[in-house]
């Protein structure tokens, strides 16, 4: 229910916030950090984790369909989606963000990880999005 509500909110916000395609054009390249998250997504495809995968509305895909995104257009869209989440959270309009992100494609869906923004918590957050960049949930890795 909450996932649905945040998806609706994010969807609405995405249509309201002007699109600045050039604002977020950089994805972080594959490295040991992204390897870890790719492993997590692969684990979610195992039969025993169907419920976990379903909660995040992720499709059942093969390992080959889980990739680290390098396409600048997709990266830019990921940045917009993250900014939309921020607007839905506090209602404050801000300039487009530029912090590089890890962006993952999982079939037609996406996941985004930001390891560079201030983080006073003891976890790395994973933001899941559907094919149209509607938010489908958030997990944390720790």
């Amino acid at each position, binding site marked *: 229910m*909450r*996932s649905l*509500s*945040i998806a*609706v*909110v994010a969807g609405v916000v995405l249509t309201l916030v002007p699109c600045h395609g050039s604002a*977020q054009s950089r994805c972080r390249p594959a*490295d*040991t*950090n992204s*390897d*870890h998250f790719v*492993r*997590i997504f692969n*684990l*979610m495809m195992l039969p025993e*984790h169907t*419920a*976990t995968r379903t*909660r995040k509305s992720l499709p059942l895909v093969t390992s080959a369909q889980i990739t680290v995104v390098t396409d600048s257009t997709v990266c830019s869209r990921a*940045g917009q989606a*993250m*900014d939309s*989440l*921020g*607007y*839905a*959270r*506090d*209602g*404050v309009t*801000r300039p*487009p*963000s*530029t*912090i590089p*992100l890890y962006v993952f494609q999982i079939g037609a869906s996406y996941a985004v990880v*930001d*390891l*560079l*923004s*201030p*983080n*006073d*918590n*003891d*976890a*790395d*957050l*994973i933001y899941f999005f559907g094919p149209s960049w509607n*938010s489908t*949930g*958030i*997990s*944390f*890795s*720790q």
Partner: protein
Amino acid sequence: MRKSRLWLTASAGVLTIALACHLDGPMSPIVPVPIRMSRFAVPPVPQVYTLSSQAGSSVELTGNNYPYNTWITVVPNGPEFMLTAYGPAQPPTGLVGATGAAGGRNGCALNAMLMYGGVATWFGPCGGTVGTDTVLAKQQWFLQQGPMPLDYPDLDCAPHPVTCHTQQIVPTTFTVAPIPALMVPVTAVPRTVQFNSVQYQEVTFTTGANPASIFVGGRVNGMPVITTSWVYTAADGTPDGNMCSGGFPYLYCQPYLHKSGRLVVKAFIGGWEQTSTITVQCLVGGEPALDDTLNDFRIRGDLLNVLVTSNADSSPSAGWTGQDWNRELSRHESGGVIWKLAYDAGYVFIPYEDPTSDAVHYHMPDSTYAPSSAPFPGATPYATVHDHPTKEDSVAYGWHANTQLPSGAITPCSRNPDDMMADGVNPAPLCDKALEDSATWRGDGPDIAVVAHRRMPEFQITNGAFIWRLNYPQTTPPTATPFRPSGGSVAQQKCAWVKKY
């Protein structure tokens, strides 16, 4: 039923003998007073008994009724009382103490005695210096005042018509205490066993008494030790090993063990039932703080106990009051510091509870692990510790405001069950813990930063899976070493860590 009948028969026999003997003074009650072992769960305190100076009076040492042989000291506290003699009667007029009055027809009169069945002991030569009586006590004991002097008035104090002596009646007191003795901490040989690579292992557990002997009556006497139970419980909570029966005076036990676990041995020593415990565990190798046999692997138990401090099994919303979190109930991260003790004395864990921590946040001030905070002289900080009490797939609230999205907005993760999005209509989304991947885990970003900042390893305790050591010095990329306190393969489960006792 058969036992009861046998006991009744034995009691009747004692009754018959006792009646036939016509013993002077009070008789021991025929029916033994039941002994409750719970009485002996704590170290004994000295007992003070009051005995009337009146000839033939007695008092039972009810507070020193032991189920097993126990050395006790009985100290007469006085006061002395007056014995008055008429004419030339003996003993003559004078003050009388616990050793009584000498010189009469019955040898010794009005002397205090310790009585056990038909056995009596005294506090010194009749009429002499009063001393402490040290006896091996068991079950019912009595203090008894001796008889009046035996007089023949016609011969001993004529013309006094009735008696030659009268006595002053006063309360006298005696202090009774067991001779202190402690249980020797139980030892295990071999000290560690790699249960994951052997089918079983014979282990010898040994205990004893300290002191092992005492000097009484001009000779050395062994300090009685009665082991009342030997119990070995594996780390998974199941009994293990062919354990010795309780109630036998054995100071060692040699079971064949199959799994890591804890031996608890109880023994009656020095007037109370004492307990000693030791664990037998596998070495993990490469991590001395976790292989600290000198301190019975206590760091392992301390690390597992951090999850208890964290209320790790609480529901995500437990403790939410509507305005704030009640930390007594809420799930929150906890931790502390492992210190290396001086002189190779092993390791000690000092907990630190962050008053601001939540399910996904824990902050330890630098001063907590500064050398100036050493809990013992010469101790040095070895590693810091915190736990991740949230299980896979479980929701966690908390989320500090300075955990941000790239835009600078705070993360949408719900901070509490009432948290709303900016529209005031939609609740903030619940954020749940992702699956853990032991193959690639090196710590989350903030934790890796903590290791770099503190310049020492960091132990991370997860709820239900691994305990990780984020290694220091850090490499590129950083590394983490997993330790498995429970679960895993059958062989790994045989090496499960033992929780605190």
